[in-house]
């Protein structure tokens, strides 16, 4: 193998480590990049270099941005007393895609897990308690996954915020938009029934 071919193989190997890509799809992606070198590969390499140099976690909320304090935390319009607690940055991005929440976020960086030895000290829970006190928060929305670990974490946070003078709420659980009852698991149907509302 020539040195140049080895460079390409290295790139394929690195690409194959990305989520959703295996060796074959990585090879296809690299070939595509090489064929579109000028319009895709060059700008992509430049953007990746830029992000690698500047990306960092927001010191306030744990979101990923390019400054010490992220854009959402800097935006005064979002200081409306609401804070939405999410497990990781992907969840924050999902909430932002919905464009229905106008407050600020707090990214925990995971969930409590007894079996995997993840304790409160491994998450950003103490920082959340500090923020509730210092940012005049009136409501904390727990947007954590409807899993055993997610809800264990939600209950723990609710306990930590007892006596802090804030309203603690959580996302509803039930039938997804476009969902058919026939395809739902019994747990979701039970949760939906418990959270039924007047029609």
């Amino acid at each position, binding site marked *: 193998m020539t040195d140049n071919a080895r460079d390409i193989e290295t790139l394929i190997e690195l690409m194959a480590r990305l989520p959703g890509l295996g060796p074959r799809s990585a090879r296809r992606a690299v070939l595509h990049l090489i064929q579109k070198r000028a319009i895709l590969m060059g700008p992509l390499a430049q953007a990746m270099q830029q992000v690698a140099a500047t990306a960092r976690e927001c010191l306030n909320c744990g979101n990923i941005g390019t400054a010490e304090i992220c854009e959402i935390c800097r935006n005064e319009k979002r200081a409306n007393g609401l804070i939405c607690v999410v497990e990781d940055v992907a969840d924050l991005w999902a909430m932002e895609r919905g464009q229905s929440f106008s407050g600020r976020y707090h990214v925990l960086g995971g969930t409590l897990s*007894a*079996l995997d030895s993840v304790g409160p000290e491994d998450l950003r829970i103490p920082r959340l308690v500090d923020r509730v006190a210092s940012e005049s928060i009136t409501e904390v929305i727990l947007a954590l996954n409807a899993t*055993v670990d997610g809800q*264990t974490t939600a209950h723990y946070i609710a306990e930590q915020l007892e006596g802090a003078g804030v309203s603690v709420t959580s996302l509803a*659980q039930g039938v997804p938009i476009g969902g058919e009852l026939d395809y739902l*698991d019994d*747990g979701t149907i*039970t*949760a939906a029934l418990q959270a039924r509302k007047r029609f």
Partner: protein
Amino acid sequence: MIEWRDEGALLRVRRHGESAAIIEVFTAGHGRHAGVVRGGASRRIAPILQPGSQLDVTWKARLDTHLGHFVVEPIRSRAAVAMGGRLSLAGLNAITALLCFCLPEREAHPALYARSITMLDLLGHADAWPLAYLRWELALLEEMGFGLDLTCCAVTGSRDDLAYVSPRTGRAVSVAGAGAWADRLLPLPQCLLGQGPVAGPEIGEGLRMTGHFLRTRLAPALGERPLPPARQRLVELLSREG
């Protein structure tokens, strides 16, 4: 190819690669058993794989020593009930964590399995649950070879006025038998003898007693590992809400 089919409660899920999961299931016939679920991290299967779920599992492997693969079918989910309250959620976590902590792999414990399934089905019944949980911990100790003898006094042989448990032998001691040693013994909650109130303090005393034997007898036998924090969280919640 080795293959078996059984029913069991899911104890633990770990992600394996991008799309698979390694699960541990407590079954009646095969005990605590691990295996890979292909597609276990997918949107379709991940909701089924919540701790406490009752599953129909088929395990296949080429050799008995292999980790093997599970094909799972949901029977019933307990997560929705457990998520309804912090006590039931803490209870679910404590049961699954203690079973993972104590049980050797691939060793059947049908009696403990039956009791554990009953306990999991009782989640959400806040009135009956604390005493049932305390009795379940006693059954767990017994199944692991550290059963307590609460039938008669270790000193006098009497079956009356049993009030303590020896922290060394795990045998009951009566008021008369304890004498001046009473302050060195563990209080025996009367609710375990079918007498007296079933209230928070009694349950708390009982859990301190079982906790002592879990910590000083069972844990050292399992390699000096600390007890799962999930149990401590449940004990704290019960004492707070008791």
